């Protein structure tokens, strides 16, 4: 199928191509919502059943790192949105700056994540890898004598959800690298900026997943 300029052969107009790309991306994001949805379901049910163990295990997480990460990711969403704006208004130089900023913030997020995981390994909190939950106060242990097992369940879900999210961040970073290379070559004009928009949609989606992960995993009964 031949391609004239930026218009692919199977489409009649650039607008039709843009609409198709945007609809296609949103449909893909719906599949991602259902994909993470299965994990959120498992988390919701197990937390409802083992509320005490999950609250206790959640206290092992470093809420400051989590909070900082949320802010970092929101900023990266902002810079990504600005990047899309630049591509729409033809500011090619500024587009590259904002894309690099988004990539950098994504890198910061992954760096913080790396330290958090390292801390878990250090504290023997990685499920299936000589998991040893520190002893808890007697009245907590009374409420749930299998707290070690249920805490391991919490950390299985914690690593499952944040690991999958981090994987999506890495894929997002790869897409951004490709996008920066294309933008540097000045490929994106107000008439054709579909890839920037598509990567933007993906990046914002990954941010939304973290917006839900942070309160669910980190902010359980912080008050006691």
């Amino acid at each position, binding site marked *: *199928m031949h391609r004239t300029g930026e218009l692919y*052969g*199977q*489409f*009649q107009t650039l607008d*039709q191509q843009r*609409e*198709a790309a945007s*609809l*296609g991306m949103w*449909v*893909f994001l*719906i*599949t*991602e919502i*259902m*994909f*993470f*949805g*299965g*994990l959120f*379901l*498992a988390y919701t*049910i*197990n937390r409802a*059943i*083992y509320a005490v*163990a999950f609250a206790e295990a959640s206290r092992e997480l470093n809420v400051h790192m989590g909070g900082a990460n949320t802010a970092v990711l929101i900023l990266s969403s902002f810079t990504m949105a600005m990047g899309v704006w630049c591509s729409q208004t033809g500011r090619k130089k500024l587009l590259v700056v904002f894309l690099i900023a988004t990539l950098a913030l994504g890198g910061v997020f992954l760096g913080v994540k790396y330290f958090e995981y390292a801390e878990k390994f250090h504290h023997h909190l990685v*499920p*299936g*890898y000589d998991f040893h939950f520190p002893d808890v106060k007697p009245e907590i242990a009374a409420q749930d004598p*299998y707290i070690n*097992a*249920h805490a*391991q*369940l919490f*950390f*299985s*879900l914690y*690593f*499952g959800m944040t690991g999958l999210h981090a994987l999506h961040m890495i894929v997002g970073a790869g897409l951004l690298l490709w996008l920066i290379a294309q933008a540097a070559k000045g490929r994106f004009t107000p008439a054709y900026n579909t890839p920037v928009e598509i990567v933007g949609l993906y990046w914002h989606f990954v941010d939304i997943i973290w917006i839900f992960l942070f309160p669910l995993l980190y902010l359980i009964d912080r008050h006691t």
Partner: protein
Amino acid sequence: MSPTASSPTAGLPRAHYLNQAYGIRSWLLTTDHKRIALLYLATVTLFFFIGGSFAVMIRIHLLTPEGYLVTPETYNKLFTMHGVAMIFFFLIPSIPAVLGNFLIPLMIGAKDLAFPKINLLSWYLYIVGGAFFIYSMLTGGLDTGWTFYTPYSSIYSNSAVTPAILGIFINGFSSILTGLNFVVTIHTMRAPGMTWFRLPLFVWAHYATSIIFILGTPVIAIALLLVGLERIFHIGFFNPQMGGDPVLFQHLFWFYSHPAVYIMVLPAMGVVSEVIPTFSRKAIFGYHFVAAASLAIAVIGFLVWAHHMFVAGQSTYAALAFSLLSFLVAIPSAVKVFNWIATLYKGSISYDTPMLYALGFIGLFTIGGLTGLFLASLGVDVHVHDTYFVVAHFHYIMVGGAIMGYLGGIHFWWPKITGRLYPEFLARIAAIILFSGFNLTFFPQFILGYLGMPRRYHTYPPEFQVLNVLSTAGASILAVGYLLPMLYLTWAMRYGKVAGRNPWPATGLEWQTESPPPTENFDKTPEVTWEPYDFHHRPDLGLASPGLAPARGDD
């Protein structure tokens, strides 16, 4: 009944998508939806015969109550891999990936699907997934049942479960991307004049199927991923020792796997909705209702999954709710069947092979659907759950329904795909053999099921032997029957009578272009001015309008 539209001597069009380029690269790197459809046809047929050979071995093993053919472990691997190969690698991709890929752009007047490169990626994901499954098959097999219930699949099974899970996980993305491609294509790339209510019902059925692809497949992807993580890292999402609930896996698994049975049958319904009007030469009865029924099946199909778990210790309240919803999903299917047979009334019916397969579909799908009501009704399900009654039910829907529809579709569009017609007489014989062999195989299993013979048993009490022998007899007829179409269709590719543009003639837009079609599908973007299946306002079809005396001397 000889084709009327084109004289048999007219040769094939000079340039078309098959001879436009030659060599392995032109096939393995193609982005032409028609070539990708043929790539799928080849690989899907391969997996059909892998799964089919397992089925034959199972049936031979069950000839005797003690079962002398294979050991218990091997028997468990046989039925598991029969299930996985047939469901994930044949039934789910067959009609959407082969006929859907080939025909949807042609039917809506587009040059190709919205994302041709993603379409090729879908095929490669399917191949990689299939490779992992074959790897798992060769290195010890899979013995967890196609349902992968935990904790057996995650803790106790020591067969090659992880590569099989990885294979199905990757194959799932092939379905997701195909569904995504279809939805975007149908929304944004219809030819001028092709409004939603002029779309052929085949396209409606695939739109509904794509909804299930998109919304259901990710959930089984995460369910199998979690089982894979449990096996690799020994962590505990569904591990009872760690407090995980095995029934939660069943919820996640069946949330996709029940709509998946509609993925398998809806496209076949789409094929029947094309074949019945063409060979009755009459507009489909209640076009809007049949189209709406497809969407209704796709949507309500998501509300009923826990009828697979009535005896799995779920709460009584949930069982009542899901049983009620399961009856609602049966209504649209009934509406479709009634509309098909209403189309026959006052038609001008011919008995070509596609019509035989379509009528076979209606007969067998009706039995399959009605026995589904037995399973949806709580009182009977407690008794027949996980017995051969269930096996017979879903084989009537999948083999009687989906495969009959698939074969009907292959025969109906074979002239469009290859430009040549299949041998009519031989094809009718094969259809009748398959229909009778099928009934002999699976009808006795209904009785076996109600007698209480459980599923997945390598030995059974002696009083069930007579029915099992009948079933095996039927299975041997089926095994032979399925070879016939493969043989004469391959023969027809080279030696079949040249078909011309519109041999039946049929009213779809795909029959306006050449057979086989050029790479760009249409010489110029077609303009659609007619209503679907309207034989009365289509002079281009060369048919007599009713009331006119048939002109003598027509060939």
